[in-house]
């Protein structure tokens, strides 16, 4: 087993201000960035604030920006860096900082509440649900989401424009709308809720310019843009920009697709 001393720059501070602090720290074979942050905590900076939980890429707690890229610290192996490379770790830059590497991700929890929940189909009791695998495949991909909020952090719509946080749900929660709209038994339409329309009217789908950074940073490899956002945009077009559909809806009330 070989170990070496790596140079780290870690952002330390809080809402009042802060700066990148230099560290030299031991790195062993097979370690990930989170291991190094823990070593700093245990040996050099016991009050270094960091969020983490499972350390296996399953809970999505240890999101940070490593060399400027939004990543999970537990899934970033030290072996991807050169030994003479300085590794820079900062908190997520789209959210208010609390302390050191910990940010206030409350934005995401507020947005989660704005998405109307699953509407159970009337007349079907527990145990009576029948769904085909090919129908649940699509929403299941989105349910792989571990809510690390890296997509929310990297999306320039809110990262570069704080004011858009009011009107834009972000990729994670637009994907949630897509998930529910593709759920084979979601009865929102029957209850008078048109998820296709509200995606654009209430959750800011139009702000997305499909530049795919959400997909690039997703640690679960969910194809957010191709499989959730663009299909959702197309569904919104069905509702709002399709003259045939528009004409049809004038003449008679069309049943929902499928």
């Amino acid at each position, binding site marked *: 087993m070989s170990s070496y001393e790596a140079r780290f720059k870690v952002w330390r501070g809080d809402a009042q201000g802060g700066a990148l602090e230099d560290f030299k720290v031991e790195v062993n074979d097979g370690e990930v960035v989170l291991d190094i942050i823990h070593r700093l905590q245990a040996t050099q900076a016991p009050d270094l604030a960091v969020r983490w939980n499972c350390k296996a890429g399953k809970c999505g707690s240890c999101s940070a920006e490593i060399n400027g890229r939004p990543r999970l610290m537990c899934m970033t192996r030290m072996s991807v860096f050169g030994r003479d490379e300085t590794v820079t770790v900062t908190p997520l830059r789209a959210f208010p900082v609390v302390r050191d590497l910990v940010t206030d991700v409350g934005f995401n929890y*507020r947005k989660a509440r704005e998405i109307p929940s699953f509407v159970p189909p009337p007349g079907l009791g527990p145990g009576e649900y029948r769904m085909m695998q090919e129908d649940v495949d699509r929403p299941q991909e989105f349910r792989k989401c571990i809510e690390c909020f890296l997509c929310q952090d990297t999306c320039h719509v809110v990262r570069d424009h*704080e004011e858009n946080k009011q009107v834009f749900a972000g990729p994670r929660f637009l994907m949630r709308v897509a998930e529910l709209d593709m759920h084979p038994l979601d009865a929102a339409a029957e209850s008078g809720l048109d998820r296709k329309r509200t995606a654009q009217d209430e959750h800011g789908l139009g*702000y997305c*310019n499909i530049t795919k950074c959400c997909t690039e940073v997703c640690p679960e490899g969910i194809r957010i843009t*191709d499989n959730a956002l663009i*299909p959702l945009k197309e569904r919104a077009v069905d509702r709002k920009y399709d003259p045939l559909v528009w004409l049809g809806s004038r003449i008679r009330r069309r049943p929902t697709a499928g």
Partner: protein
Amino acid sequence: MATGTEPPDTEPRAPGGGAGAGTRAAIAVPHLRTDRWWLAPAATAAGLLAFIVYSTWRAFADADYYAAPYVSPFYSPCLAERCRTMHAGPNADLFGSWWAISPAIIILIFPLGFRLTCYYYRKAYYRGFWLSPPACAVAEPHRKYTGETRFPLILQNLHRYFFYAALLVAGVLTYDTVLAFRDPHYHWGHMGLGTLVFLVNIVLIWAYTLSCHSCRHIVGGRLKHFSRHPVRYRMWGFISRLNARHMLLAWTSLFSVALADFYVYLVASGAFDDPRFF
């Protein structure tokens, strides 16, 4: 709680404050990326720019676009009186003599519109030209951003209509490719190097057109229950596999269409003699 669910009590910052100001971590630089993040947008911009320059020249040239049996894809179908006569070719005098500039302009609107509103090209030029954003986690230089919520970008929602038009154009180009199985004297059953170029081009054009996100939606994506539409589900599966390569197909078909045109130009201008296979 800091990560509470109450609305933030801090004042929203001035628009365009970027990722460094307000209550966020005080980091002055627009990004901390150490990799060559600028390479992809720069290459994209260079590639698109090169095509724009080339295609502008060729579209307005109004010359060297027909060398029997080949017609440049930029000029097909050719719909003005001023078009060169193409024996059994894709020309019809719909616009008459008042159309005084290159007839390519009439038809190029459609493939141009298709590609301009294409979900891949949108990403490419938003990143490459508009720098919105230049790369992930690299700050964009604009103070305000409204995305595709307002005119003119709200028109991107018309992509599917350009897709329908692109289907027709691809049909015509298929016809052109069939015609390319003739010799310069319009006898059937022959092939030259140009036929091969056309063949490759039309395959890529079709693959690109069918791999379109709108196509994927129309074919099956809009369904809630795949299980009730097994045929459309299979078609959707096929389109989805193509769609995964949409970017690759966008570039290769862009290149091949330019190549096909350039080949016709070379032959028509006499700079190159089309080698005949049989």
